[in-house]
């Protein structure tokens, strides 16, 4: 389990990119839900954390490929491969990420994660 940030530092409508390998992004939707997916668009290298969060979808800032945060599935127009999804836990006023597969390398420590946004 990776500490992402304090709950207060992630208002609704925001996203945080964690520089893991590969990078992962945590989203807090306008409806108050938390989701996490691999951050890199499967169409071209761009950060989905920089994209547009609407409902439980995120739109890539470069070419508007849309991914469903619940399933990681793309809309299929530009991006055809899904991104992996991960779990988010909110406990004791903090946001935590639980990676879905062990092959993701959490290669940096919590301090550096705090600095990432």
């Amino acid at each position: 389990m990776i500490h992402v940030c304090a709950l207060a530092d992630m208002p609704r409508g925001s996203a945080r990119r964690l520089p893991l390998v590969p990078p992962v992004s945590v989203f807090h939707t306008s409806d108050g839900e938390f989701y996490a997916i691999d951050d890199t668009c499967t169409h071209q290298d761009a950060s989905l954390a920089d994209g547009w969060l609407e409902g439980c979808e995120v739109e890539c800032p470069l070419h508007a490929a849309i991914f469903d945060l619940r399933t990681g599935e793309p809309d299929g127009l530009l991006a055809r491969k899904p991104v992996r999804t991960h779990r988010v836990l909110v406990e004791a006023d903090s946001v935590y990420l639980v990676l879905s597969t062990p092959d993701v390398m959490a290669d940096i420590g919590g301090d550096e994660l705090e600095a990432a946004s």
Partner: protein
Amino acid sequence: MTAATPGVTPSPISTSLISTLAGSYYTDPAIFAREQEQIFERSWTCVALVADLAATGAFQKVQAGRESVVLVRGRDGALRAFLNVCRHRGAQLCTEETGQLRRNLQCPYHAWTYDLSGKLVAAPNLTSMPDVDRDRYGLLPVHIREWLGYVWICLGDDPPSFEEDVIGEVVTRLGDVGSIERYGVEDLALGRRIRYDVAANWKLIIENFMECYHCATIHPELTEVLPEFAEGYAAQFFVGHGAAFGGDIDGFTVDGSAGADKLPGVSDDQDRRYYAITIKPQVFVNLVPDHVIVHRMTPLAADRTIVECDWLFAPDVVASGRDLDVSVELFHRVNQQDFDACERTQPGMASRAYRDGGVLVPSEHHIGEFHSWLQERLA
């Protein structure tokens, strides 16, 4: 005459005549380039109607001097102006004249993507370049002001005083700023816009607008409505003077019939009068009781100028769907008559007959002040 040795300041030839600029001022690409650099890229210029950029993400591509500038309404409600150039490899960002951005401004070349406040928000592989400062590589901002319901921009690093250079022109002509404020120009709505592509130097268009020596010859409809124009003295010859409507004229219309109701703030002594103001270097404002006409010029070459003319009426007049043709037609004809005259004059500027210029008669002597203003800026 070359660009390096501009002609002398207009000087008296006799009691009646003073000299104009030399012909080369209207034809020489080198002089035109200096005007672009030293006038249009340093002055406040009027480039758009604020109401055309009301919605978040609304954008317009405009020209200021030799620069393309994009105006965009941000998510915070602020209107911003940026040089229309991608910070990556210099491609023009915005290629359409006007429209609505969905999310961001994106370069069509490598997809560098800027938010509506100009910050770089995304680019291919940007996340693997953490040393790239997204603010530093944001779009380059241009100074911007709103006045009279219009967007004014200045490309200069250190813009001149808007109050002196722009509002000051209105005070010089009308005597005070309250006289124009009574028309409530910023609250008026666009009734009609006509774009004229004029094959003439921008200064010929300004000089023409400043004088009325030509009015009796080429403007039959206008002199019918404003009989004193037949005497050859333009409203701009005086300070605070509005040309009076003829006694049998009911409105500022092509046939003298009644126009719309007088704008609510217009005073009794402004009623039934036409006022004109030149805001150098590229704006003309025309005030009549029921509407306001604004001309904006964009010089594209020594012999080509775009003029956009807006007819602004009270919002309820525009919303009512009332036929504005009789009102619009009067100044549309004046515009066509004027621009035809300017286009007839442009070839003469290159003639050996005009190598040393021509002359200004007494009712045109105030044009000499424009020539002095120009030469001060080109010096």
